[in-house]
């Protein structure tokens, strides 16, 4: 990042008013637009129903904050259950995918077995297959295997988009680890398995964190599979539960909907705030490779 900083070294030549017009004001507008829906979500979830549906007073602030919507969410719906399902599914799918991806990436990038280049390309292509064209046949398969309406339906199908992503990311990461380290270990009589566990994996921890965080977020956000493969209320995940159960006919419980959206977003937002750098590295790494 240092070079980019240095490039701006001549910014003192720009006058301050000019910087306001060309940089600060556009940036503030961007930030306002990007963040306003979140502000609105928070404000709405603390408003009482009466306040929500009145057009009079200043809507940008809460006059009498209330926790009613959160109470309704946690005691009046299956929300805690959805949360629990989402956590289980996301965590399991992430770990399964990460484990499979570590081996696959190491094999493609370092073992260089016959045909590894083609396999690498196939993995990249698999990353480009969108859920929108897979969900119908997958729904049939899930039904035939007998895991319809269970967590397994999601745990087994989420790796279809997680493994290609994680493998691709880890391949880039393994590439940056010097070959010499492996060669030294090979001369000292280490097996490939020992090299992977004792040399490569410890060095690839940042890559593993990036891939893990990203995979977790992707599974947490998944909607189409969860909507198609799950039908019982107590098996739903947060995104599906909120959208299918908090809307009764034409009656929208806006407060509860917003509270549900807020609470459902918090885990990924908190996780993201702790690992911003890893997350950005994961996202840009996957695009740059």
């Amino acid at each position: 990042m240092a070079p980019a900083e240095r490039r701006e070294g001549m910014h003192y030549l720009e006058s301050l008013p000019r910087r306001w017009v060309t940089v600060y004001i556009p940036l503030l507008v961007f930030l306002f637009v990007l963040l306003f829906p979140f502000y609105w979500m928070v404000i709405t979830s603390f408003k009482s129903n009466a306040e929500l549906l009145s057009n009079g007073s200043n809507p940008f602030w809460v006059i009498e904050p209330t926790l009613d919507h959160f109470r309704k969410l946690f005691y009046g719906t299956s929300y805690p259950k959805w949360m629990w399902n989402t956590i289980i599914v996301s965590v399991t799918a992430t770990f399964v995918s990460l484990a499979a991806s570590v081996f696959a990436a190491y094999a493609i990038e370092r073992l260089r077995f016959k045909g590894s280049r083609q396999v690498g390309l196939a993995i990249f292509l698999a990353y480009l297959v969108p859920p929108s064209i897979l969900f119908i046949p997958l729904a049939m398969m899930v039904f035939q295997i007998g895991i319809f309406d269970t967590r397994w339906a999601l745990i087994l199908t989420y790796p279809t988009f997680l493994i290609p992503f994680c493998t691709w990311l880890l391949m880039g990461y393994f590439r940056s680890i010097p070959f010499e380290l492996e060669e030294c270990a090979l001369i000292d009589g280490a097996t490939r398995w020992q090299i992977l566990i004792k040399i490569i994996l410890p060095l690839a921890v940042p890559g593993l964190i990036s891939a893990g965080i990203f995979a977790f977020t992707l599974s947490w956000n998944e909607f189409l599979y969860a909507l198609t493969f799950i039908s019982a209320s107590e098996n739903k995940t947060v995104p599906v539960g909120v959208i299918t159960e908090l809307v009764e006919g034409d009656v929208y419980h806006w407060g509860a909907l917003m509270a549900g959206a807020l609470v459902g977003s918090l885990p990924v937002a908190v996780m993201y705030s702790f690992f911003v750098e890893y997350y950005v590295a994961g996202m840009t790494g996957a695009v740059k490779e």
Partner: protein
Amino acid sequence: MSAASRFFDNRNVLGPLFMLPAAALLLFFLTYPLGLGVWLGFTDAKIGRVGEWIGIENYEFLVTDSVFRLSVFNTFLYTLVASVFKFVLGLWLALLLNKHIPFKSFVRAVVLLPFIVPTVLSAIAFWWIYDAQFSIVSWVLVKMGVMDHYINFLGEPNLARMSTIIANVWRGVPFVAICLLAGLQTIPPSMYEAASIDGATAFQQFRYITLPMLSPIIAVVMTFSVLFTFTDFQLIWVLTRGGPINATHLMATLSFQRAIPGGALGEGAAIATAMIPFLLAAILFSYFGLQRRRWQQGGSDR
């Protein structure tokens, strides 16, 4: 070393062995359903009934189906307009973030929030912002005296299209911006120094250094962006479910609606399969975008 362990240390044995878990999962849950989906498109499968081969009947029907044709049109419109805006605004935001600004890392972290929060959940916030009776946007416009009535954002065909596109752009801009920012940071500052010594203006520097150096990553980022937008489902499903009068139905939402609530698996699969040629075009574009990287990084063309 025993013979067995030497055998397992052979790269052509261990390699495929290490590939096994990933390959098994992907072959069974990705490759096979991909083929099954194409096959289903040629059958009249319904929920609870195994389909029989009916050739291209589904496609023959779809070609004459005005709703399907509208959904194809919508998908292209949605993808095109949203991608153009995502690119322009994303590039602009990336250039802004690459400048010397206070709280730089904090601002960068915050910018990405719309992308990491579950789409469905942020779409709910947009749903509420677009509400016909209580929309905050309408409230502000009416109070400012710009409008005298509330806007029915999701109730009229063209307004609904615009509203869904805005929500999609809102979510996509951070992704494009942060990826392009990473690309901007790899451009050597010496190029700009040389250019400014030669008297290049800021616009010339942008046109002849930034854009060409950024073009490979732009190609890749935009391919991903187009791919995700073209196959979008969540946003539309939450905001409009394809309405009003099918004005916002995308191919993905129509495929879902016909197949799952409608029960016509074969027809839904045919709609999904119809998306594949366009996706292939995007992937090929991405492939050639990737190829171009080598010379731009100072390497030689093969």
